[in-house]
């Protein structure tokens, strides 16, 4: 008998709030974190992004530590993890793993030429800094798999728990808005000149964002918020910087995840999709969902609230989707107006009460990677 796997704690640090409750309030009220910014140290021209206020971040951090040695991203990550480690009461022993997911980590450290700063740009150093703050005794596991990193971490944590290597896995996923990433997406002409509009006819690209999200994945059913019942992560084997036109990797990832979960497509009540609002990504997702017969399942992208938070996005969006499920409410896919993908899919246009038993989370990213994870609501005792 395979062990069952649950998520028992969640938290997030975003421009919409520094805990799950404040984030849900903002999302329910249709408030977005995306704003226009003028900051030539980030971008030569004004741009739209979802950015955490530094004063709020520093003042929140000062409440848990007086240390000055942490980077901005490290503060976000520590703030996200701190309450869930405390609440859980889990002993950080040899059966407790720590996964850190990120796309670019402390890449801003490269702006400074010093050797010390260069060391800080290493992802294992970032993971050690965060791990040592809490005193994990197992070696940190860093996942850096582009934009699927955050949700891939859930899948890997589930597998490690099922194999009985660990009983508990804390995951932190985080990424920052930086000149590095802004210029890169801009060089691909993938940036939207307005707040992003996932799946819309007039979408022109991504808005970037920053966030840290944290969860505890556990073999323990007590206090479970959701059950993790199937997962898969299949590469397109098609192109390194563009998705497959047929959505093959995503199609197979979802198919495998549903098969493992032992549920049919008609059982899915909700899909929290990737929806970056680039023309190719959204079209690819619509094709994959259509090929699976998922056209009528309500779907949203939360990128309109948070922007694309890269390696954090998959985990942040899972945290929000768990609340959606437990509150039986579908959240509006903000930014959406008129359908702009070739296959009809059921985009959630306004908040709606709906019983949710099963939901699917997906993500796709550079390198042709895709991840799909199926979750089941925990029956209250």
């Amino acid at each position, binding site marked *: 008998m395979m062990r069952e796997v649950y998520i028992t704690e969640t938290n997030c640090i975003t421009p919409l709030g520094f805990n799950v409750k404040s984030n849900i309030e903002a999302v329910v009220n249709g408030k977005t974190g995306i704003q226009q910014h003028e900051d030539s140290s980030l971008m030569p021209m004004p741009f739209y992004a979802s950015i955490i206020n530094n004063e709020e971040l520093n003042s929140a951090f000062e409440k848990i530590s007086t240390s000055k040695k942490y980077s901005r991203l490290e503060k976000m990550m520590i703030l996200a993890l701190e309450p869930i480690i405390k609440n859980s009461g889990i002993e950080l022993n040899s059966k407790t793993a720590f996964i850190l997911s990120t796309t670019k980590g402390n890449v801003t450290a490269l702006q400074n030429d010093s050797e010390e700063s260069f060391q800080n740009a290493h992802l294992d150093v970032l993971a050690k800094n965060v791990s040592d703050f809490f005193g994990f005794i197992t070696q940190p596991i860093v*996942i850096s798999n582009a934009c699927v990193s955050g949700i891939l971490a859930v899948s890997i944590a589930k597998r490690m728990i099922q194999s009985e290597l660990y009983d508990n896995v804390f995951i932190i996923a985080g990424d920052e808005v930086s000149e590095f990433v802004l210029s*890169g997406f801009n060089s691909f002409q993938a940036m939207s000149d307005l707040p992003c509009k996932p799946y819309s006819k007039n979408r022109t690209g991504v808005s970037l964002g920053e966030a840290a999200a944290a969860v505890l994945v556990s073999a323990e059913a007590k206090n479970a918020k959701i059950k993790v019942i199937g997962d898969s*992560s299949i590469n397109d084997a098609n*192109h390194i910087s563009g998705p497959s036109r047929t959505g093959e990797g995503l199609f197979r990832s979802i198919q495998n995840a549903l098969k493992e979960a032992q549920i049919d497509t008609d059982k899915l009540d909700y899909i929290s999709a990737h929806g970056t609002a680039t023309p190719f990504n959204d079209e690819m997702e619509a094709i994959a969902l259509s090929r699976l017969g998922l056209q009528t399942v309500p779907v949203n992208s939360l990128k309109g609230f948070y922007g694309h938070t890269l390696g954090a996005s998959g985990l942040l969006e899972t945290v929000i989707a768990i609340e959606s499920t437990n509150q039986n409410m579908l959240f509006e896919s903000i930014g959406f107006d008129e359908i702009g993908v070739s296959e009809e899919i059921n985009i959630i246009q306004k908040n709606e009460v709906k019983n949710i038993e099963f939901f699917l989370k997906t993500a796709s990213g550079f390198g*042709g990677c895709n991840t799909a994870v199926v979750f089941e609501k925990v029956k209250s005792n």
Partner: protein
Amino acid sequence: MTQNKTYIHDYITIQNNEIVLNGTSVFKIDPTDFADFSKQAYRNFEIQYPKFFKMDALSKLAFLGSELLLSPITVADKENNIALILANKSSSLDTDVKYQESLSNKEDYFPSPAVFVYTLPNICLGEISIRHQLKSENSFFIFDAFNPEFMSNYSNILLNSNKADVVLCGWVEFFNDNYKAFLCTISSEENLKHKNETINTLYNK
């Protein structure tokens, strides 16, 4: 989860201008830089894949190692469920540093998408997947040093849960012309060639 026994099938090491396959040196040249070494290796093995020349160094390193392990075992027009599990210390920092340098000149500010795309360590997994048409599980990990215990445990999980038939796992480290690749193929199919070895002993050979 059922814990079936798994076996190392083939392994390869690339370092110090030399490629060693299953313990035998198959290519060695006089000391040179990696760009030259990788080009000569590509020619030596008569690889026909022009995309190779567009790759960054990390992808070239991972590509060369996987080429010699996967070409004999992948079958065209057939599903090859070979998972890719790679790790390193320096992520994509070699390319990250080059990309960051392109941002520092504000007068001549033309960040290149062709460079930016390689500022992700998992791009090398994408390159290998495209080359061998592997629509399979893949993930890239970062550790401060080669972590044979994790790599071996995670490979076994993928094999035991039937998420992969074969796992290509290993270490592909590249920064500033310092490099080492160690890759091996693992599966549940019995193979006694390396029965007294582990990923760790082979890595340290």
